[in-house]
């Protein structure tokens, strides 16, 4: 259960949520641990601990959740819930993702309406922000291993990743144009490579 994620096998493990209640509770617990963003903890819980998804499946679902409009962890919960228990499962996972965090954030808003600009609170928020930045970057590093089985090949994958990083982090291009621009170029290339693999009979 506690294998190093970098060498995690990319095979289907066959674990799944046992019920809609399980879905709701799992996503609630996951959301409640997600300070400064839920994605890092979602990857750890769903892939490493519960093993409902392999690393490759997680990356594929994440790509879909990311390109569709709306909060991406909300999209992800909806997709996973639907896959196991249909519409009701989607609602259960969605409710889990939102219900308790909503109560907490409203309670905080009511309580903190006066103190949120004190130096200590501001400092603590800054510290948590720095950690949250590390969490999300690490999630990216963990998923790099999934590129090994990508039909575009290692060089193209790395080139695309570096270009995307530079465009978003340094040049600050709008996210939509990077996702749609580089993303569709990459998808076209992958389409071509998948076709080639089929022609030559290489099992991909």
């Amino acid at each position, binding site marked *: 259960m506690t294998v190093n994620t*970098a060498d995690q096998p990319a095979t289907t493990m066959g674990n799944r949520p046992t019920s809609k209640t399980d879905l709701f509770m799992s996503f609630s617990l996951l959301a409640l641990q*997600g*300070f*400064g*963003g839920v994605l*890092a903890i979602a990857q750890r819980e769903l892939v490493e601990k519960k093993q409902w998804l392999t690393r490759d499946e997680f990356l*594929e679902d994440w*790509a*879909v959740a990311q390109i*569709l*409009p*709306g909060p*991406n*962890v*909300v999209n992800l919960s*909806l*997709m996973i819930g*639907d*896959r196991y228990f249909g*519409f009701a499962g989607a609602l259960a996972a969605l409710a889990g993702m*939102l219900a308790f*965090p*909503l109560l907490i*954030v*409203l309670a905080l808003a009511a309580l903190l309406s006066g103190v*949120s600009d004190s130096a200590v609170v501001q*400092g*603590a*928020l800054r*510290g*948590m*922000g*720095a*950690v*949250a*930045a*590390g*969490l*999300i*970057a690490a999630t990216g590093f963990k*998923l790099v291993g999934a*590129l090994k089985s990508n039909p*575009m090949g290692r060089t*193209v*994958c790395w080139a695309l*990743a*570096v270009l995307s*990083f530079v465009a*978003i*982090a340094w040049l600050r291009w709008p*996210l939509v144009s990077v*996702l749609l621009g580089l*993303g*569709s*170029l*990459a998808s076209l*290339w*992958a*389409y071509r490579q*998948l076709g080639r693999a089929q022609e030559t009979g290489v099992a991909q």
Partner: protein
Amino acid sequence: MTVAFTGTDWLALLTHFLSLSLLAIGGAITTAPAMHSYLVNDKAWLSEAQFTSSIALAQAAPGPNVLFIALLGWNVGMNAGGGINAGPGAWWLALAGVGVAMVGILLPSTTLTFAAARWGHRNRELRAVRAFKMGMAPVVIALLVATGWILASSAGSPTEHWRPWLLTSITAVIVWRTQLHMLWLLGTGALLGAMGVL
């Protein structure tokens, strides 16, 4: 702060969030500038401070960051009711604001996601669907690392403000390579920040 709020205004609030929902590619936060100009500048339903603290609070609290929208709705409703000290009526309006804001921002996008993801999963063996997922993979991975970079940059440049950057880097390596629970890291970050070390 107090604002006068009519039935038409509630409808306008709902329509505003509904109209932004499908534009929120990459998360609801990407539509924050549009919300700011509408809610704070055009309509003056929210104060500048209420807007920024809603985002900061939702990011610090557990759960999806989209909850800043719930807080925006909460504050609009609270202002419509005459402020936090105006009695239970204001609290009910605040809750109504939460409902309107969240339904508005989530209903169109979740409906689309539900339908599109279902279609994609049913057709997952199609060459086009596989190509999309494979092609997006490196872009999406880079996006995660870039998001970390951008969040870290909010502390300032790495040369001038090396301490938060160091904390970010150490966190990234620990999370990448170990199973240490993330709450320990967040707690440490909060403590260091509160002590003024960063």
